[in-house]
């Protein structure tokens, strides 16, 4: 009998820790997991940057950010941008909600939770163009303002702040062609390490990249999918290298880390081009394993997105509704000047 009781208590404690582990933004997760009674209210209170700000119900607008997952540094940066903007504006209650991993069903759940939580506006990075449109329609019907950050869905929103992924992919492709030309390589095969077939943003990048190679003497091999996991992507890149490729393209941060490490492990000699930035990617550029990476501006997406949402909520109209937040090319030349 006693054992049963203990196991029930343990189970509930584990469950509570799991729930608080899933939800909430980074700065509050530590606090949340120490007490089983972590509530989303505490999360909201902690993330409101303005300390001591009284949440006067009428003036404060609630804006909720829903990204594709809660762990990729890219989303962390979007959240950072949002937090800064919310602090600057001062009358926003801001929250970050995201699933643990890219999953349509979970993202729909987050949208529904946001509606129930009384959001006034939702900033969302859609996993895919169609899966969540239903939930978004419901949100709009409830009067919630929708702004897309990073990836839009197929339903109208007041604004979209994203990287033109296709253009960025094309830029990456052009960078690779240039690097290959400099190295005197005129033909051969190219490998692409993508994430999965369902994520629209990375698929657009691949499409742009392939466009750059149209009509060139290089063949692009069958794309492999590494789920954005650095190790899986590295195994795939290793295999590409064994298969004799002259260049490999990584479509997001995890893939790029894997590609860089694989080239490093093989002793170089292959042109590696990637996407996104992280500490690891920057050091891989510094030591020459990667030629360059396309760095997005996630924090700009976040701050501008939140600004636009707040503006619409305040009754203003927007001048630009589709904004390309752009990419910058980071390579050996300028990597040291980055923070």
């Amino acid at each position, binding site marked *: 009998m006693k*054992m049963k009781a*203990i*196991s029930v208590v*343990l*189970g509930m404690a*584990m*469950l509570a*820790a*799991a729930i608080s*582990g*899933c939800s909430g*933004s*980074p*700065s509050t*997760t*530590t606090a949340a*997991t120490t007490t089983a009674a972590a509530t989303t209210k505490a999360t909201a209170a902690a993330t409101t940057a303005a300390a001591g700000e009284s949440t006067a119900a009428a003036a404060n607008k609630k804006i909720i950010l829903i990204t594709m997952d*809660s*762990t*990729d*540094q890219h989303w*962390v940066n979007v959240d950072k941008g949002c937090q800064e903007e919310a602090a600057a504006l001062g009358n926003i209650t801001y929250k970050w909600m995201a699933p*643990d*991993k890219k999953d349509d069903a979970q993202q729909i759940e987050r949208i529904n939770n946001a509606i129930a939580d009384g959001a006034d506006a939702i900033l969302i990075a859609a996993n895919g163009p169609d899966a969540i449109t239903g939930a978004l329609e419901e949100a709009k019907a409830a009067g919630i303002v929708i702004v897309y950050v990073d990836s839009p869905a197929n339903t109208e929103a007041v604004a979209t702040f994203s990287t033109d992924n296709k253009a960025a992919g094309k830029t990456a492709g052009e960078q690779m062609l240039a690097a290959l030309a400099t190295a005197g390589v005129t033909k051969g095969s190219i490998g692409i390490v993508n994430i999965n*077939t369902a994520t629209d943003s990375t698929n657009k990048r691949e499409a742009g990249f392939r466009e750059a190679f149209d009509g060139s003497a290089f063949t692009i*091999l*069958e*794309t*492999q*999918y590494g*789920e*954005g*996991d*650095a*190790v899986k992507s*590295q*195994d*795939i890149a*290793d*295999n*590409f*290298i*064994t*298969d*004799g490729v002259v260049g490999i393209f990584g479509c997001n941060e*995890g893939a790029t*880390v*894997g590609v860089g*490490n694989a080239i490093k*492990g093989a002793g170089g000699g292959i042109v590696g081009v990637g996407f996104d930035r*992280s*500490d*690891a990617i920057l*050091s891989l550029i510094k030591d020459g394993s990667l030629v360059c990476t396309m760095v997005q501006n996630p924090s700009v997406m976040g701050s501008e997105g939140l600004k636009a949402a707040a503006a619409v909520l305040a009754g203003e109209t927007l001048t630009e509704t589709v904004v390309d937040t752009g990419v910058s090319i980071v390579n050996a030349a300028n990597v040291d000047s980055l923070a």
Partner: protein
Amino acid sequence: MERNETREKHTIRNILAIRGVGQIATITIGLLVLCLVFAILNHSFYSGRNVGNLLRQIAPILIIGIGQAYVLITGNIDLSIGSVVGMSCMISATLMTKGWNPWLSVIATLIICIGTGIGNGLLVATCKLPPFIATLGTMTVARGVAQIVNNNYNTDAIGEGAEGFRSFFYYGKMLGIFNTVWIAVVLFLIFNFLLSKTRTGRHIYAVGSNIDAARLSGVNVSITTIKAYMVSGFCAGTVGLVTSATSGIGTMDSGNMYELYAVAAAVIGGVSTLGGQGLLLGTVIGAAIWGVLQNGLQFAGAPVAIRNIVIGIIVIFSVLLDVVLRTGRPRKSAKGAAHTEG
């Protein structure tokens, strides 16, 4: 009696009659056929470079397969393996980015992972929770720990001081073979010895075969269960270290789904999910089959859509083949499960 014994030992038929060996023979043939097919489809598959890479890709699957095999043989299951891999990757990487000596990080990480194994064992053996639920709980907690250890960020690069660490676990070679493979081989030898030649190993089979008979014969069932989970925790921890050495960073999502790959490797190799039987040598072949499939399908240029279907069909086929072949074979002088050397 002596004459009979020596005569029996040396016929192939009687070696095959040893319980479990038949299945290993079958899947080995399957493995060789697979390798042949992939080699034909793309010559790069059997290049020296790929063989080296392939072995290094198989090694982590084998290591977690060993851990899962131990737990399966006791009649339980460990669903937390994947999360412990992630937790281990994050803890070791975070400690190293904070300036810890890599080897101290390794020790601290492994202690925590073995501790998780002890936790699993206590929940199952002492609190009598069903293993599925207990390890499902630990799985979620471990994943949560992986996330909070670095404040819900993936870690920065683990830095120059960790070159030795990265070389030991992933990039380095000894006698032309990657260290990771050597680590897997050494762990296999140790754990196979433990399982087939020591009292603890015998008890592990007994508990899985008939837990009541074991208890009534004076076997300490709780300790045996905990030991099996400790092995699993240790193995998962080791693979987590390999992961952080591989990518040079800690990734919160690493190890996702690994517990199922571990089950696949063990079960293809002949470990029964009901407990009480299975040879670790089979897990080696099972892990190899899994690794060859993942690697070979890329070289074969298989489109991603059919990859998973192909993998699934081959996995089912390899287990089915053994069942079909075995029902026809007479059980005359089948020797013991734990009796053979691995």
